[in-house]
């Protein structure tokens, strides 16, 4: 196969990936975009399979079969509430693929590839020329080293993120010394990359990069709490893209570089959006704890005697009169699997002529866009899912806000109390509405560990209990009215 033609097809594939992401800028064109992107992938794979250097198809067929079955099973069986876990795993696999490609390329260029496990560790006498001439060899070795490093961090980091999202790991563990401990691991891994560049045959250096980076991935994500996972997932998404782009430099492959850098920027931009939505720096999310606020806020003092609770049928009486209702979902809605019940409540209100919209905070849920996907699953039209900046000015004209499973993103302390750890975080200004209904199990604090003065306000009603059950009872009461 003529290499020029192969590169031409890679260019076409790259264009299809770009058109695919462009399609995602509108819900209407998104499905077509995804199809175009998949077509680009098919083209790139087919043209690669025609490459004359591929003669042994047994490993390829086995890998495609195993991977295809696992991938399809995951994709078709996963519940929408578990989408963050799925994306975490996919990030990890992406990192793992780049890692193994870089290792394969390294041992293949090395010439004297090991035949036994002990050989992997035995340094080989080789000149850098196996990896190219002069600067080329340096670039190739740096690319290999960095791909291995980032790929391995992404692999183990994503598995920890998965374990946290799946609630297999509930506590947070960290290296003693926190960021300093991690920095030592990172510097050691980078030193191993340098030593690999100086002496390419130093297989011990290669194995060290792998080991150190795998550990670094674990230590980076283990201390981070569940509610910060949107940032972590977005960041690991970006890493998997950067690793793919670096693998492109190793192989001199254009389509890998284009696709990898698109994924890398996507992850970085989402990371940035999530950090802004929490008013925290990336460093603070990764290494910091939520700063302990200046004055400690006593929950009892805020709540004592001021919290009004209500039964679902009492709420239904208010909903009957409402002209405009905004529903604010949070992770609790996903936990209670209440999205279908919420949609039915909205249907019941709309049948009575009430205007219903949904106010979505960027960090609601466990990954960017999590709430939107859940509500779309429950067949809520996407134009009713309103982002924070557009819904906030409408709260003053809203009769009732129903908060289900959200807490910190509605806490007015973020706006008013300067000493508070969440001060400055953009929130949904639900307290401006005429009535606020909070469906929650108890008065327990959210991830930030703070009491929410909203719960004690005069126009707030607390409905205690399971989110799904409470919403269904409201719907029933409303339909009987």
């Amino acid at each position, binding site marked *: 196969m003529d290499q020029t033609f192969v590169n031409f097809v890679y260019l076409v594939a790259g264009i299809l990936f770009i058109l695919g992401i462009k399609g995602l800028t509108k819900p209407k064109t998104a499905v077509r975009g995804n199809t175009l992107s998949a077509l680009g992938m098919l083209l790139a794979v087919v043209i690669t399979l025609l490459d004359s250097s591929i003669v042994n198809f047994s490993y390829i067929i086995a890998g495609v079969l195993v991977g295809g079955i696992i991938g399809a099973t995951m994709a078709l069986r996963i519940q929408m509430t578990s989408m963050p876990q799925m994306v975490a795993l996919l990030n990890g696999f992406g990192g793992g693929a780049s890692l193994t490609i870089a290792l394969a390329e390294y041992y293949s260029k090395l010439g004297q590839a090991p035949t036994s496990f002990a050989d992997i560790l035995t340094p080989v006498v080789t000149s850098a020329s196996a990896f190219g001439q002069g600067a080329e060899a340096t670039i190739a070795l740096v690319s290999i080293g960095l791909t291995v490093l980032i790929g391995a961090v992404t692999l183990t980091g994503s598995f920890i993120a998965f374990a946290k999202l799946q609630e297999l790991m509930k506590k947070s563990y960290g290296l003693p010394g926190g960021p300093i401990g991690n920095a030592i691991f990172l510097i050691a891994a980078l030193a191993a990359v340098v030593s690999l560049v100086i002496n390419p045959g130093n297989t011990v250096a290669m194995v060290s990069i792998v080991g150190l980076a795998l550990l670094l991935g674990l230590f980076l994500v283990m201390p981070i709490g569940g509610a910060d996972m949107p940032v972590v997932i977005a960041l690991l998404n970006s890493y998997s893209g950067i690793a793919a782009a670096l693998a492109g430099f190793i192989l001199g492959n254009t389509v890998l570089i284009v696709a990898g850098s698109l994924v890398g920027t996507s992850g970085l931009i989402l990371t940035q959006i999530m950090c802004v939505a929490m008013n925290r720096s990336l460093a603070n999310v990764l290494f910091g704890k939520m700063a302990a606020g200046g004055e400690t806020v006593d929950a009892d003092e805020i709540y004592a005697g001021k919290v009004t609770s209500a039964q679902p049928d009492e709420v239904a009486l208010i909903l009957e009169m409402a002209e405009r209702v905004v529903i604010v979902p949070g992770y609790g809605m996903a936990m209670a699997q209440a999205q279908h019940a919420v949609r039915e409540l909205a249907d019941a209100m709309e049948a009575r002529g009430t205007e219903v919209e949904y106010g979505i905070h960027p960090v609601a849920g466990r990954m960017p*866009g999590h709430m939107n996907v859940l509500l779309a699953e429950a067949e809520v039209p996407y134009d009713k899912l309103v982002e924070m900046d557009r819904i906030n000015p409408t709260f003053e004209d809203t009769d009732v806000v129903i908060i289900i499973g959200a807490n910190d993103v509605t806490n007015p302390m973020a706006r008013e109390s300067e000493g508070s750890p969440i001060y400055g975080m953009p929130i949904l200004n639900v307290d401006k509405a005429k009535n606020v209904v909070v469906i929650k199990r108890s008065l327990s604090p959210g991830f930030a560990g703070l009491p929410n003065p909203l719960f004690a306000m005069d126009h707030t009603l607390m409905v205690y209990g399971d989110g799904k059950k409470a919403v269904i009872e409201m719907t029933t009461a409303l339909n009987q009215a």
Partner: protein
Amino acid sequence: MEILILLLALFVLSLFLGVELITKVPPTLHTPLMSGTNAVSGITLVGALLAAGSDTSPILVNGLGFIAVTLATINVVGGYLVTNRMLAMFKRK
């Protein structure tokens, strides 16, 4: 060296293009964007195929290639299918 500069130019321009494109994706579609880009990063399959299919290489290289093909295929198949599943939910009205 020439080729390296060319690849580097491609890399930098793609980053800028990425920023322009991704900032236009609405928050509603951020989850499909992540799973969709996961599928795109499965493009490493191309590199994996070359490693798994070469004949001159020793078994270790083929073995690593096999792992890479498997992982990248999970991303490609899983990523596109799950993205399609989600987007279909957004489309229906």
